[in-house]
């Protein structure tokens, strides 16, 4: 028997690539959340209405990830001392490397 796929309309959800590999097995429906607002990364930060590119994530060199808007809000306060909320290391934006595998 030969099976040929003529066309396929497929549905997918998008996820931010947070660098953590997830497979269908490990995907238990629990979402990674932003440590600051505690809302899922794929939802938007409390100040936004539209998810995705309009409310992106921000990566620190310390590997910690937040909603960009949440982090900027924190960094802009003197109390933050420009530190990562997670590890209190100085916050440095990391360039995202595209994972092409």
């Amino acid at each position, binding site marked *: 028997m030969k099976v040929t796929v003529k066309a396929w309309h497929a549905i997918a959800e998008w996820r931010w690539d947070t660098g953590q590999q997830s497979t269908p097995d490990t995907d238990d429906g629990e979402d990674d959340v932003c*440590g*600051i*607002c*505690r*809302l899922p990364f794929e939802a938007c930060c*409390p*100040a936004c209405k539209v998810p995705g590119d309009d409310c992106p994530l921000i990566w620190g060199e310390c590997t910690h990830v937040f909603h960009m808007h*949440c982090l900027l*809000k*924190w960094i802009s*306060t003197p*109390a933050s*001392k420009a*530190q990562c*909320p*997670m590890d*209190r290391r100085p916050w440095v934006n990391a360039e995202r490397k595209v994972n092409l595998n």
Partner: protein
Amino acid sequence: MAAIAPRRLTKELKELTMGECPAGVQLLQSADFETWVLSLEVLGESLYKGEVFALRFRFEPQYPIASPEVTFIVDDKFKAPIHPHVYSNGHICASILGHEWSPVLGVASVCITLQSMLASCKKRERPPDNDRYVRTAPASPKKSRFHYDDDTV
């Protein structure tokens, strides 16, 4: 700037009421997003065994970017624990409530930190400057400039 506290506190409230409340901690009051009251006791062997304290959290609209104001309740029913970092008026000298606050912290983590602060205490005593501080203390400990003499808390 829009108030971000309600959505964050909604999540925290959900967690606290859904069984993710730290052991020894109980939510006593959470009717709004401004003031919550939790009871706190130190489980296991400690100087405070059998004592129950109450913590009052006050949140600003910018919580968790802004730290919460946390004090032990001192009234007919509750007393502040006798501890080198806790003033008799309930104010707490703890770095995470001041310059080491981080927005990833929350009500539960503050409670756990304070529990461990009490649990690790070796000697029941007030801070050396207690009387002077209590006489002149502002209503909110957030306005006090504490000298954190112990980096462990």
